[in-house]
């Protein structure tokens, strides 16, 4: 049978060019993109998969320099900020266009942000627009007149924005998908302003304003985009097409890469990382990422309401052992919540690795050498990687504290539900920042915050986060954040474990990549080197 098959294959044995080779010639980038995108409507989607495509087909008022992550002009060519930091005035580019050639004007942003905030649209990211004056009230149906919201088109090319309070990271937010503009006529051709899931994002209907436009979208097969000739900076775009391949299985993705079907992968199978690093270091990229892996502790449970127990648990975890021997892909051991060097902010306060102190604290809490310590459970969502880490921590707690821990895994949505209802003792968690500012991590743990899920509440902490929002200078904000990190380190509602890394495989022909902590690679800077 095999012989027969080989015979058939031998007959057509002439080697065809791989998609990567053809892509190099024609400027077509093939990119692995994780799962099938749910939609690409910037106001109803939530994931990175969708954002990777939205970056190609939409553009916000500003974007970021991929080298430095500094804010640079995009649809807006310039802007001014009032002295009190409350009013922003954006000058829209004269030559900004939609992909159908229509002029892109200030009113388009007013319309788009109104849509993003329409209660009935059900935008799960609406809260990222809340910094704009009255936006939250509008979204929560407390006011219904959008003219009270702080967004006005002064004329076609001038957009004025008023904020609730000074927000140091406001410009950073403008590059978030929830702030991308949408084309009014197209939206309204296929439904009302607040209709969710109409067919306006289908390839044949779509109008966007990014460097690329949709060419074809076949679910679970391909999402391809092609150069948008009306894009204002089209002259500086090198790629002609980008094909996003929905490949949820990372092993399949790596095989596609090896077989010349992808220029760039979304991820790399963990067990292959070391091999690539040893044999083909130029084809693998591993970089620190804007996310933290940590354990949440349920501070409302009788056992973990004792800060000494929480500290003992944290102090007996050897993060370096975990990053070196368990995760093994260059993760950075973390002793506080925020990843290092966020626009000049690195938290000073640290949770410790101090087994002796951990033992003493546990004895202090009434459990000398772990005696009478009740059985507790680590919850994680089902995955080999999380299990390995949980096993390592289980072992560390046993060795240092002599306490018995059981592991419990749940399927993703069940786990989310358990975590949200706080039906756990210790749970694996993670957080990826939304915008380049410490606030995206730290405001998570304010009292009753939607993503707090630890039951921890500290009034001083809440106040610090509020103060930081209103602070006049960056230094002042960072002092508040430092104190907030100090409170987290002292009270230990969470145990930080490591800062994430992102992993990709890239062909040699893919040029213009930049290492940065957001893994931000705008497509207009990428190019493909022709085959030799």
């Amino acid at each position, binding site marked *: 049978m095999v012989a027969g098959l080989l015979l058939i294959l031998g007959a057509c044995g002439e080697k065809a060019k791989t998609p990567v080779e053809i892509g190099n010639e024609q400027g077509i980038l093939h990119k692995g993109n994780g799962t099938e995108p749910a939609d690409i409507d910037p106001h109803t989607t939530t994931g990175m998969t969708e954002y990777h495509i939205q970056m190609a087909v939409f553009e916000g008022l500003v974007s970021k320099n991929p080298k430095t992550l500094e804010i640079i002009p995009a649809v807006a060519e310039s802007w001014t900020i009032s002295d009190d930091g409350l009013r922003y005035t954006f000058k829209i580019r004269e030559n900004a266009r939609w992909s159908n050639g229509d002029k892109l004007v200030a009113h388009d942003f007013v319309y788009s942000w109104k849509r993003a905030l329409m209660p009935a649209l059900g935008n799960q990211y609406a809260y990222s627009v809340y910094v704009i004056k009255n936006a939250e009230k509008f979204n929560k149906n407390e006011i219904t007149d959008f003219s009270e919201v702080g967004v006005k088109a002064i004329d076609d090319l001038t957009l004025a924005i008023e904020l609730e309070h000074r927000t140091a990271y406001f410009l950073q937010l403008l590059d978030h998908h929830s702030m991308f503009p949408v084309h009014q006529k197209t939206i309204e051709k296929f439904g009302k302003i607040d209709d969710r899931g109409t067919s306006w994002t289908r390839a044949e209907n779509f109008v966007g304003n990014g460097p690329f436009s949709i060419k074809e979208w076949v679910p679970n097969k391909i999402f391809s985009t092609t150069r948008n000739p009306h894009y204002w900076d089209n002259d500086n775009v090198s790629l002609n097409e980008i094909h996003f391949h929905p490949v949820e299985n990372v092993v399949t993705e790596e095989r596609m890469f090896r077989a010349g079907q992808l220029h760039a992968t979304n991820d790399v199978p963990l067990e292959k990382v070391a091999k690539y690093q040893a044999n083909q270091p130029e084809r693998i990229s591993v970089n620190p990422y804007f996310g933290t892996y940590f354990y949440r502790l349920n501070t409302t449970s009788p056992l973990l309401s004792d800060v000494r127990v929480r500290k003992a648990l944290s102090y007996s975890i050897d993060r370096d052992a975990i990053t070196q021997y368990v995760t093994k892909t260059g993760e950075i051991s973390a002793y506080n919540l925020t990843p290092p060097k966020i626009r000049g902010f690195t938290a000073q306060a640290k949770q410790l690795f101090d087994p002796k102190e951990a033992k003493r604290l546990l004895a202090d809490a009434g459990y000398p050498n772990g005696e009478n310590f009740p059985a507790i459970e680590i919850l994680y969502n089902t995955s080999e990687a999380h299990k390995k880490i949980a096993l390592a921590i289980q072992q560390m707690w046993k060795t240092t504290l002599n306490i018995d821990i059981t592991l419990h895994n749940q399927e993703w949505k*069940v786990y989310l539900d358990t975590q949200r209802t706080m039906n756990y003792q210790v749970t694996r968690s993670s957080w990826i920042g939304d915008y380049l500012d410490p606030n995206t991590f730290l405001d998570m743990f304010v009292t009753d915050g939607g993503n707090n899920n630890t039951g921890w509440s500290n009034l001083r902490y809440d106040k610090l986060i509020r103060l930081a929002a209103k602070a006049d200078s960056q230094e002042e904000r960072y002092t508040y954040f430092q104190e907030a990190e100090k409170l987290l380190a002292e009270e230990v509602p969470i145990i930080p474990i490591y800062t994430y890394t992102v992993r990709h495989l890239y062909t040699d022909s893919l040029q213009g990549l930049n290492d940065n902590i957001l893994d931000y690679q705008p497509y207009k800077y990428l190019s493909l080197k022709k085959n030799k």
Partner: protein
Amino acid sequence: MIKFIFLRVFQAIPVLLFVITITFVMVRSAPGGPFDEDRAAPPEVIKNLNEKYNLDAPIYVQYFDYLKQLAQGDFGPSFKYPNRSVNEMIYTGFPITLELALYAMLFAIFVGVPIGAAAALKPNSIQDYLPMSVSMLGICLPSFVLGPVLVLIFGIWFELLPVSGWGVSAGDKILPTVTLGSTYAAYIARITRGGMLEVLSMDYIRTARAKGLNAYNVVIKHALRPGITPVVTFLGPAIAGLLGGSFVVETIFQIPGLGRFYIQAAFNRDYTMILGTTIFFAALILLFNLISDVILVWLNPKLRKAPSN
């Protein structure tokens, strides 16, 4: 005959209704909903979403609304993929799954039957032992092992075939077909061998041989047809199994069939999608069982009277 078919179709209705009810209750009782994400959305937003999709109504109201909708042939919109309806997903995904299943079936028949027949001709010789042990391996080897191994050999080492896709580049349908079909080819080979051995030991074959017919005529003309009858009965359940089992192969080879959506839907709590695909597959399996029963009845008139007894 027509009465028999009517009766069977009539019997299928409560079965289908049972499947719908059970699935509906089960997906709803699983913790976590379609809009639960890593980061919590404000409760007001979740409330609006639930209103939009009628998830705030009492569960029995939702159930009857769903049945009403179903009666019109509408599976509703997908929760995860809001700009697509479940009908549309089935419409685009199913033909691909069906095509894959049919190719795999043809592969299984054209590989399995000759091997099984050949093995039966010289029982307990190397010609028997070798293919039968290989087929045992084929039955035991799951597709998530066989697929990647085939990809490694033919896709990456020899660079003969594409490692993924369906109808994108030349030859990309070969590896998925072989991966999915191998297990069934192995089953068919063993079933054929069994059937053939039985037939070959029958008196009329001995008579044919004694009359001096050559081996070809004996085997092909007289033994094969009755020998593969068990294979025919196996095909009905096999095609249902191929359709249901294709999701692993679809994932390995990046095939945009219905199976992949089915699995993802369960993880996403995409209620309408889970229900739609389950009902669709259930109806399909009922249909294939009906067809294979009809064929059996048609082949064996004795059975025709059975239902009315």
